[in-house]
């Protein structure tokens, strides 16, 4: 080799070494770069939009990656003097920042670089604020899920929120704590089943009803109309409502207090804590109190002796409601053998004065009822239980609480709160209606086992078994020797459901299921003054399917069907002490339920979203259980008997529209039409076709709707705050109390058209940590009735303060 070649070779090696050094230098920590070859130091601090330091942000200079920011968001690097260089800083979720820096600019101080939030194009679901409930709403069932967390700053109760779902009517007979019934597509009372986290709660007694549960207690409400998935095990003829409790993972406190008209106070505390070792504590406590002394327009009897009535406007005077609840769940989370294992105890009680009977002119001044809840419970959940892909959960509870009905004041009251003695005997000889001091326990137990098994990525098997037991034991202190009260009244109900979900066909989700209902009732029968045991067993097989097809990302069409049953209750089969006679031949109610839903979401200009949903429903129901006057007497009281008396058809639909702009402005509206028709061709009394055949069913609203408008301002007064203002309107078209075809129309008793307005203002600051909400209800002070002539509260206001923090 000659000299030239040798030098080239050496130069090559030197280049290689130098490059290596440079490469090594450039990949090493900043500390190593602080070579005395570079003359100036760039001190950088990288922050986000709220001035919080950004750790691990990548810094590149002149296209070369020179390191990342430390935990304090700081970055130091030496740079060449007398030069400009390009700077590029990036961090996940943030917009990339690029800048050209001249070394002369650096005065030696720290230069702050702020990275902006990366704005992704929002999905329509996010603009509409439905992300949390989207997964439930997309199921193949006719289901509406509501996000209750959005309303945690209002002083609503759960019933008022359920009332905003199309097809649902929550009918209250007064203010806080009054009797409430849910109607779903015209099916009411026992035909609609209520669940809390998948466990039936229809027998929890008076202390835990939907119109005394505060909205902060739950996260989400799911309303299944007509076709109920197997994981809600119940004989729900009309549908099921599942309340999903407020269980945030992690640690949180949510405390609120609200004060409102009619001396109404509500307080609520929810606490959650999960320690590092998995120890979990959940606390839920609330208290409701109201005097319910709202104004009513009524015919008063100023002189009880003559009975003459005069129209007047008075305050309710005996309607106080007092209710408290404390629930504690303790256990472990995230263990190898359990995702969650919680043992809980719920304690509560309530006292409700009874102001009226079924009519408002039936006024009382002393009757009341009380109830307690003593509810131990257990919850176990494990995903991948024993086998991979097998998720299992088990929930159980037992209510040891009591109910008490008291009527011991022998006086007649009027609406001014005045009273006169009823007879000659002492003041406690009788009652306002009839003397009663009846205490009873339902001894209600519930257990639900849910198993979900993923056979393969597109096929899932669901198994549910829900068991309910009731053992009514009562005592009438006034008739301790009456054997009637000592007779057993036991009911055991077991519902097993098996479903297969399949997603093999593209864009389609299908599910078929069967349910087996078994009910065993053990009570007594009276024959010629001799009591004998009577047992009844009824088993039914129900089935159904649910299918959905996603036309595109924003459209879905769903179809579902179920043959469903409602088992008769103990009272319907065997009567009660006062005025219900037995009918052991009673059959379950049954129905074929069909649903067809189409929904579509429009999105334009990245900020406007419009969701439109159209639902069609068809129900063909048989053997509705109704009470008939049985023309017999029980020591001078007219008695009634339950009979399978009514066949019903319902063809109806509802329309729901929701428009949102930029997650700030929302307009919602829904309209429900349900055409419930009497399908019983012959009434028991005649061989001719009944004149009420095909008549609309009495006392059920058939056209109703609601709408609301709301707007949110951000960063008002303080940063990280929001001011939301909204107004709500409810509408129910008038309907008849009895058969529309019976009698001259102008003389008929009707529930008049209902139109009412609510408004709400909520101000939150410090990222929702502190909140103040003001609600106004029935702003026009209209006379509102859900049930014939039982007036609901007049215009009322409330203010709520809420503090919430979570980690």
């Amino acid at each position, binding site marked *: 080799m000659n000299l030239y070649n040798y030098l080239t070779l050496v130069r090559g090696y030197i280049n290689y070494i130098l490059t290596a050094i440079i490469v090594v230098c450039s990949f090493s920590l900043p500390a190593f770069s602080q070579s005395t070859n570079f003359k100036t130091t760039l001190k950088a601090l990288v922050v986000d939009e709220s001035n919080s330091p950004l750790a691990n942000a990548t810094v590149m200079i002149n296209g070369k990656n020179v390191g990342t920011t430390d935990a304090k968001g700081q970055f130091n690097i030496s740079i060449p003097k007398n030069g400009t260089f390009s700077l590029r800083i990036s961090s996940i979720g943030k917009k990339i920042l690029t800048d050209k820096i001249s070394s002369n600019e650096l005065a030696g101080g720290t230069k702050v670089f702020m990275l902006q939030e990366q704005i992704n194009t929002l999905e329509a679901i996010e603009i509409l604020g439905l992300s949390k409930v989207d997964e439930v709403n997309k199921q193949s069932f006719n289901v509406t899920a509501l996000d209750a967390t959005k309303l945690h700053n209002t002083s609503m109760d759960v019933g008022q929120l359920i009332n905003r779902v199309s097809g649902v009517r929550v009918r209250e007979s007064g203010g806080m704590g009054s009797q409430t019934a849910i109607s779903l597509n015209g099916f009411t009372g026992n035909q609609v089943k209520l669940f809390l986290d998948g466990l039936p709660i229809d027998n929890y007694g008076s202390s835990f009803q939907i119109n005394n549960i505060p909205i902060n207690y739950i996260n989400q409400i799911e309303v299944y109309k007509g076709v109920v998935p197997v994981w809600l095990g119940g004989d729900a003829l009309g549908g099921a409502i599942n309340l999903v409790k407020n269980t945030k993972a992690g640690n949180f406190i949510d405390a609120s207090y609200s004060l409102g008209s009619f001396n109404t106070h509500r307080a609520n505390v929810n606490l959650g804590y999960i320690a590092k070792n998995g120890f979990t504590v959940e606390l839920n406590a609330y208290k409701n109190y109201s005097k319910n002394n709202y104004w009513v327009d009524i015919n008063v009897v100023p002189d009880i002796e003559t*009975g*003459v009535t005069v129209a007047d406007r008075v305050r309710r005077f005996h309607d106080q409601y007092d209710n408290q609840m404390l629930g504690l769940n303790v256990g472990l989370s995230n263990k190898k053998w359990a995702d969650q294992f919680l043992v809980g105890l719920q304690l509560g009680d309530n006292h409700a004065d009874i102001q009226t009977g079924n009519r408002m002119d039936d006024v009382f001044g002393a009757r009341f009822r009380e109830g307690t809840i003593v509810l131990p419970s257990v919850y176990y959940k494990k995903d991948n239980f024993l086998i991979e892909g097998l998720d299992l959960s088990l929930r159980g509870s037992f209510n040891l609480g009591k109910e008490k009905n008291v009527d011991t004041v022998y006086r007649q009251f009027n609406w001014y709160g005045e009273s006169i003695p009823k007879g000659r005997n002492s003041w406690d000889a009788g009652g306002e209606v009839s003397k009663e001091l009846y205490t009873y326990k339902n001894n209600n137990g519930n257990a639900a086992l849910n198993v979900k098994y993923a056979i393969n990525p597109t096929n899932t098997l669901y198994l549910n078994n829900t068991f309910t037991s009731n053992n009514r034991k009562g005592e009438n202190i006034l*008739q301790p020797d009456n054997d009637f009260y000592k007779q057993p009244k036991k009911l055991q109900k077991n519902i097993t459901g098996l479903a297969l979900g399949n997603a093999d066909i593209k864009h389609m989700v299908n599910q078929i299921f069967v349910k087996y209902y078994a009910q065993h009732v053990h009570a007594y029968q009276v024959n010629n003054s001799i009591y004998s045991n009577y047992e009844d067993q009824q088993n039914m097989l129900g089935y159904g399917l649910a299918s959905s097809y996603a036309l595109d990302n924003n459209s879905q069409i769903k179809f579902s069907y179920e043959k469903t049953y409602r088992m008769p209750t103990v009272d319907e089969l065997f009567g009660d002490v006062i005025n219900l006679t037995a009918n052991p031949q009673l059959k379950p109610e049954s129905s074929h339920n069909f649903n067809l839903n189409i929904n579509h979401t429009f999105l334009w200009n990245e900020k406007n979203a419009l969701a439109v949903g159209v639902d069609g429903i068809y129900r063909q129901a048989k053997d509705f259980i109704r009470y008939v006057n049985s023309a017999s007497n029980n020591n001078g009281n007219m008695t009634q008997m339950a009979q399978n008396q009514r066949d019903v058809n319902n063809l109806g639909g509802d329309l729901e529209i929701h428009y949102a702009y930029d997650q700030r402005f929302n307009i919602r509206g829904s309209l429900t039409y349900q055409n419930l028709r009497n399908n019983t061709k012959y009434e028991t009394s*005649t061989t001719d076709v009944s004149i009420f055949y095909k008549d609309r069913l009495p006392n059920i609203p058939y056209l109703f709707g609601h709408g609301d408008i709301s707007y949110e301002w951000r960063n008002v007064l303080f940063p990280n705050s929001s001011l939301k203002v909204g107004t709500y309107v409810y509408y129910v078209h008038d309907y008849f109390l009895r058969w529309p075809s019976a009698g001259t129309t102008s003389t008929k008793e009707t529930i008049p058209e209902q139109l009412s307005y609510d408004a709400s203002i909520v101000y939150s600051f410090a990222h929702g940590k502190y909140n103040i909400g003001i609600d106004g209800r029935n702003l026009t002070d209209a006379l509102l009735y859900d049930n014939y002539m039982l007036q609901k509260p007049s215009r009322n206001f409330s203010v709520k303060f809420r503090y919430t923090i979570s980690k």
Partner: protein
Amino acid sequence: MNLKFYTKIAFLGIAISSLSACSKSKDDSAPIVNGSGEKFVFVAYSDGTAGEAANYIITADDLSKGEISIKNNGVETSAYSFLVQNNTLFGITYANYGPTQAFKLNSTGKMEKAGTQVNTEFTGAYTPINNDAYVGVSLSGGIENPEATLYKYDAKNFKVSLRKPFSLDLFKTGEFANYNAVKEIGDKLYMPLNSATGITGKSTAYIDSAWIAVFDKSTLAYKKLIRDGRIGSIGNWFGMQGVEKISTGDVYAWSTSGNALNKALTPKNHSGIIKINPSTDEVDKTYFFDVEAASGHKIARGTYLKEGKFLMTMYQTSEVGGVSGGIVNLAIIDVINKTYTAVNGIPNHAQMPYDNKTYVDSQGNIAYYVMKNNEGNFYVYKVDVDKATAMQGARFIGVSNITAISKLTY
């Protein structure tokens, strides 16, 4: 046409109308001419179950034929008990405080509400008294509180004018008294009773006695208890019948002497009629009409016609109904002459609940009786008292019971 012609027409018109007025006072069965000032008033209970059905007050002119329907016809009311006083129909709701609403025929013969609702008592029995009032009885408090309240209702001014509680612990046997009716008997009120234990499922031990409690009509004060051991209890629960004063001034009372629920508890006494002297409130021990022996049937219900004659429904089989039930047919029973005459022209039918639905004309010659036949259809029958015959008349559509029949004028 000239004035003379018109005058002739006018005279003719007057003559005809006076003729019809004359004939009206003699024979009420003549067809009612439209707008003549009176209507039959029915209260019909519609088909349907407890929450769906209600009473509808309908009017009719002609009961001899055709159909009377409540389809889009009738004044809807939640009242359950009805009585007529002072040309007004009073409807009492079977509920706490017994809200009472009055109804009248307006000038065109249409039924409408008169006045506002008035609170009374939870009413279990009632009867018109004098010509401007009625008396009602509140439900008893059961065995724990065996008392009830009598009240007087002013049917002219629409208000309760008097209330008087009274004890139902009248037998001193440990059982208490249930009442079946209350009737105006001269200046007193007679209240037939039956004995009850007050404990559900436990029957009374006293089945071979008839009792009547006597009250003073003006003060509503309790006077005495009448008892007779030859028949069972008088009347039936919520029946408003069982004792009546006839044209001679004497009082007669009748009993089914049966037990629908428990054959083993059937009284040994026969179904029959006893006589009571209203001035002494004592039973005439010499009089007993053993109707069961005379006819082979037990009495179900009875309505007074004229001259000691009663229109009674008689159980045709050994099955005796309670508040309702049992197969019956009509008979005319003369308590003075102790005769029994079966009525022809009406088939056997089920006893209507509580009481017979009967309207007797002012002379007592014609009675209108509503029944439900074996096909389940309701008909009104016109009964000729003297001939003891019945003829089928109009049919009711859409009803499950006829609660009351009466006649009002306008």
